[in-house]
């Protein structure tokens, strides 16, 4: 069970290894707070829809499974959206249309298809929780790098010395692509080193 949990965080990290969920990863990570909010919202949706799919895995006919999964996911996303709007209006405004777009985040549909529709509830929770947290971790790292270099702060606190001039490029789309590209290269480097030893 622990294995199912930890594989999502490093070995099969949804973004770095499987290249899923790219749109929110790149779009919302202009700051670490946005990254953590999007990560946790996605984790909530993937875990709760995983529980439902796993519970009903023997009832859902396989021909219509994709539409069924999608409707289940869309329901939970609506829930998250309404909760964010009611209790965290600032975050809701910062994430904008990317909250509803969690519906089409391929990580979520991918986990239902690959794991929860074939496994019992407890294992499904471990798997989806691992994937969700692996995703969150990457968003926080990417968000922090972009926030430190792009606006000289992290989690909204100013940390860079006074002579530091923010690199505006880091908060623009180009910076997102390039930073993620470099993180993916680092990930390959670490895995390569680990394989050799």
């Amino acid at each position, binding site marked *: 069970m622990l294995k199912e949990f930890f594989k999502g965080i490093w070995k099969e990290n949804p973004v770095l290894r499987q290249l*899923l969920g790219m*749109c929110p990863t790149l779009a919302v990570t202009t700051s670490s707070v946005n990254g953590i909010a999007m990560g946790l919202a996605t984790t909530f949706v993937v875990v709760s829809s995983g529980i439902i799919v796993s519970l009903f895995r023997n009832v859902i006919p396989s021909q219509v499974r994709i*539409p069924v999964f*999608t409707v289940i996911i869309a329901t939970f996303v*609506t829930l998250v959206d309404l909760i964010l709007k009611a209790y965290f209006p600032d975050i809701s405004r910062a994430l904008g249309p990317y909250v*509803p*777009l969690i519906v089409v985040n391929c990580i979520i549909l991918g986990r239902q298809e690959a794991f929860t529709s074939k496994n019992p509830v407890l294992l499904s929770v471990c798997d989806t929780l691992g994937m969700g947290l692996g995703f969150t971790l990457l968003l926080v790292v990417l968000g922090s790098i972009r926030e430190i270099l792009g606006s000289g702060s992290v989690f909204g606190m100013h940390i860079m010395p006074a002579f530091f001039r923010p690199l505006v490029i880091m908060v623009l789309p180009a910076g997102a692509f390039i930073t993620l590209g470099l993180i993916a*290269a680092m990930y390959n480097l670490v895995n390569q080193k680990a394989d050799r030893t």
Partner: protein
Amino acid sequence: MRELVTIFISAVLVNNFVLYYFLGICPFLGVSSRLDSALGIGMATTFVMTMTALVTWPLNYYVLSADTGMGLPFLEYVIFIIVIASLVQFVEMFLRRFFHNLYRALGIYLPLITTNCAILGMALFMVLREYGYIETVVFGFSAGAGFTMVIVIMAGIREDIKYAPVPEIFKGAPITLITAGLLALAFMGFSGIIAP
């Protein structure tokens, strides 16, 4: 007319769906290794996107909207995703029945389009920006055209990268992402075209 041209130029060049809003990144990275398949998915996406614009606008205006419809805005996401999924299915069946050549060219890309976030993104922007019917259809078409243009450019670059000596750890995803970053940088040059 002026507004429609502005919407077109904005969606294709300035606020390109892929390079500015990060919508449709999955096919952009996944299906862009060959030029002909990139063109195929681009055309299929443009087609479905225009159709989605045609269908979701009246649905939103007369059924979902709180002001003009029956006040069911919380059903927006569920309804939109069902519309898109069934539209994709319908287009697939229609093409298979009546346009066999086109089906053979686009067929394998159609199922992938349901999970292309650019389509749902387009429908959400339509609600957010309160576009009219004709504006929405033009917006849908131009967003698709912009997607096609960028994915074709990307495929052209990647066909060349295959013959370049890329360092081992940069092979695959990293070099593709960095290429996309440089492309986004180039497209920033268009940002002055439309006065804010």
